[in-house]
């Protein structure tokens, strides 16, 4: 499946762009995680990495559609 991934903060630095198109085997959040972990190993060093799908944090078993708004959420530090 082809997904358009938005990035913020250190995740943008690691992926190298604000938006990245990825070709992922499988259609679950867990599959996307596996892809990211393999192709961008620096993500594995972060304190946490959440994935937001259509404005909500998504668990590993959530199914992704190619039209979804998918965003990488590295450790937040607002305030």
């Amino acid at each position, binding site marked *: 499946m082809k997904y358009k991934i938005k990035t*913020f903060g*250190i995740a943008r630095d690691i992926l190298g762009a604000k938006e990245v198109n990825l070709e992922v085997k499988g259609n679950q959040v867990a599959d996307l995680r596996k892809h990211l972990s393999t192709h961008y190993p620096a993500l594995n060093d972060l304190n946490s990495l959440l994935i937001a799908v259509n404005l909500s944090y998504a668990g590993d078993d959530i199914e992704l559609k190619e039209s979804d708004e998918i965003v990488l959420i590295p*450790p937040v*530090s*607002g305030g």
Partner: protein
Amino acid sequence: MIKITEKPIDVQKVIEVASALGAGGLNVFIGTVRNTTKNKSVRWLEYECYEGMAVVEIKKIVDEASDRWNLLGHAISHRVGTLKPGEIAVVVAVSTPHRKESFEACQFIVDELKAKAPIWKKEVFEDGEQWVSAHP
């Protein structure tokens, strides 16, 4: 009011929006950029935000606070962009009938906002930069 803005935050305005006639107490937290972190001098900070979701997440936090305390009014403003030491990054104001709950509710919202809202800051030093809290 929940607002993400690139412009300097007008504290007086935030307080006015959070005010309510039946309230006896209004508590305000103003978070400012510190000039040092771990003894290193901070030149400036870069804040960024996943805006659509940040507003949704902060709204959820306010709803949870409303379940726990009698919130008569609230206003939250978070700034993004480049901020120098001394500048205001966030203002949270809540009003409640009695003073104790105004302190509790305001602190809850500030704590949760910092823990959950998709907002990030990068500290820029003389000799480098780092995304805050990114690494262990």
